[in-house]
């Protein structure tokens, strides 16, 4: 058998295996992706014929007060969520390294939050944080005051950030835990011989060597902020004063309540671009080459 026919057989095999994936991607990714861009350049209401309006949706977006409100909300949310989720997951991961018994139980207990239905726990939190809910009753008994968790603009953002943090501590904590486990023990032993204290070991060894896991958690957390929907949609409806109105809520209401899928597609594209931008920026600023040797 010649080299050429051998190559042809190999190529046929390769194509026949990858074609299934190509077809799948073309239908379920390529087609919607292409359609998204067509829609972003169109005016349509699902019912009447679609009209090409080129970049009018983008121009409209930059003049839309609500779009800028959502951009601000997203960064405002990040300001609470990222430090909170990163700090607490790190604490959880460190706690896991110290625990000797029931480690799997604790991991599973925290992961339950991650696999719970968003709708179910949103309703539970709403009842829990209500002005006459158990949490406020307890605070009132102690201090004589209540906290308007979902009705004061900044508190509402913080409350939702707390809920999402609760959901993701277990998941991000596990990523950081595996990062902590991959740091060689010998490094700590050497540092101890040199007389390094606990804090010094944390700042000089743990944190720098945990960089890949931290970057991964940050990337996941940032992309999540641009995708939040269930909690604000169910609990605050985007209020008060539109402060908890997120990109995904805006995309959904624009497409299916205001019947403007063209503008919704434009928003989806811009949200995705902003999310990529933030991820790239974070990696540029924080990511470091790590060597354990």
């Amino acid at each position: 058998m010649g080299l050429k026919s051998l190559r042809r057989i190999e190529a046929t095999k390769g194509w026949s295996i990858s074609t299934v994936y190509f077809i799948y991607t073309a239908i379920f990714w390529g087609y919607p992706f292409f359609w998204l861009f067509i829609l972003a350049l169109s005016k349509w209401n699902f019912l009447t014929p679609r009209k090409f309006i080129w970049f009018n949706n983008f121009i409209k977006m930059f003049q839309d007060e609500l779009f800028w409100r959502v951009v601000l909300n997203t960064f405002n949310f990040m300001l609470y969520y990222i430090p909170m989720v990163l700090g607490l997951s790190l604490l959880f991961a460190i706690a896991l390294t110290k625990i000797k018994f029931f480690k799997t139980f604790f991991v599973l207990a925290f992961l339950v939050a991650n696999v719970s239905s968003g709708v179910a726990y949103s309703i539970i939190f709403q009842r829990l944080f209500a002005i006459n809910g158990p949490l406020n009753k307890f605070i009132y008994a102690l201090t004589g005051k209540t906290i308007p968790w979902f009705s004061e603009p900044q508190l509402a953002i913080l409350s939702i950030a707390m809920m999402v943090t609760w959901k993701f501590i277990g998941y991000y904590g596990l990523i950081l835990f595996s990062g902590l486990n991959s740091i060689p023990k010998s490094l700590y032993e050497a540092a101890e011989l040199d007389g390094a204290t606990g804090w010094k070991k944390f700042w000089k060894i743990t944190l720098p060597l945990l960089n890949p896991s931290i970057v991964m958690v940050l990337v996941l957390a940032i992309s999540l902020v641009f995708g939040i929907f269930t909690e604000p949609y169910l609990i605050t409806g985007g209020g008060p004063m539109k402060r908890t109105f997120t990109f995904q809520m805006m995309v959904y209401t624009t497409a299916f309540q205001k019947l403007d899928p063209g503008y919704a597609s434009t928003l989806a594209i811009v949200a995705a671009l902003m999310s990529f931008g933030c991820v790239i920026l974070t990696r540029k600023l924080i990511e470091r080459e790590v060597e354990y040797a």
Partner: protein
Amino acid sequence: MKKVLFVVLIMLVVFSAFGKEIVFWTAPNPLQESFWKELVQQWNEENPDIQINWSTIPAAGSSEEAILTSIASGRSPDICTNIFSGFAAQLIEADQLVPLETLPGYWELIEQRKMEQIVEGWKFNGHYFVFPIYSNPMLMWWRGDLLQKLGYDSPPRTYSEIYEISEKYSVPNEKFGMQVILGRNWWDRWFDFINYYYAASGGKSYLDLERARATFNDEHGKSVTEFIYKMFKNNWTAVDLGNYPLYNGVVLGGIRGPWEINWAKEQFPDVFDDIVISPPPVPDYYPDEEPVYTFADTKGLVIFKSCKYKEEAWEFLKWVYSNEENDLRWVTMTNLPPARGDLLTNEMFTDYMAENDFFAQYAGFVPYAVPPALTTKTVDIQDALTTYLIEPLMYDRAGPEEALTDIVRRIRTILF
């Protein structure tokens, strides 16, 4: 036996080849489902040549979403219920609906059901595209027991009366006079602001669609905005009232629809007996003897233009709605007032009304319940009402006049 089977088989083949099938979607609500299931079965048995293919609106984020998807994919139903005014306007504008008055016997049916006044609220460009099925007036529920403790035998009627009881009852962060605002969703504005405006203005429309502007920047609109502002400013109401505020005694009263009757009876049987119903509050200048108008939470059914057998579809609807017994069954099963003008006078409903006082009170307001404006921009307008009128008043970010001027300007931009 073989012969019978053969005949049945032949009949099936003939009907499937020549019989007419009408696709009919109804609201995904268990009570309404049982109503339609029986009726469709009866029709299909009596009319083998016109078969109704009945199902509930497919599961989706909302009924509107499911219907839109079906239209976009060319699989729209022939008849569909659960259509609200804003969505109807969008369907009409997209030329999807049949003007029902062009079908034989439309006006006879309207006359028979005394619906002349009701259908006027659904008129669009001189045509009647929607057949209203039910009309829920939105009324005030008050805690009679708590009012009596405060020394009142009847619920308050005017804003001043509400201020008076609120001042007596309210304790900061604990108890409030009334639940003034129902929520932050766009549809909540139907039940609070628009409802109060209808009550204050004697049922005047809040939008002038021909001139593309809001009409509520008049004395009535000003009174309503003042009322909302004053209630929040004095802590006589609050943004977050917690869970079940009316039943927990956190508020003395609030707006409720008839769908809450059965639920409240089951969940809070002790409190339910103390509930007193009254029309929405009115400004002090509103005449005593005049009837108070309310908002009508109303849904209707439509026939799509894509329907192959329009007259047959209409025949089916006429068969359902010309029989008063079907209305009685609807009332008994759903507790929603059917859209007919003779609910209080028709003997068919007398017994039911006598046994169900709450329902009777709602039924009494059907003639004064005004549907929302038929605009394609319903969601945009009501979203703007929340953000630029209600929330600034709630959080004291703007005074009543300032907020009113701002929202009227914004609605002009939305409608223009």
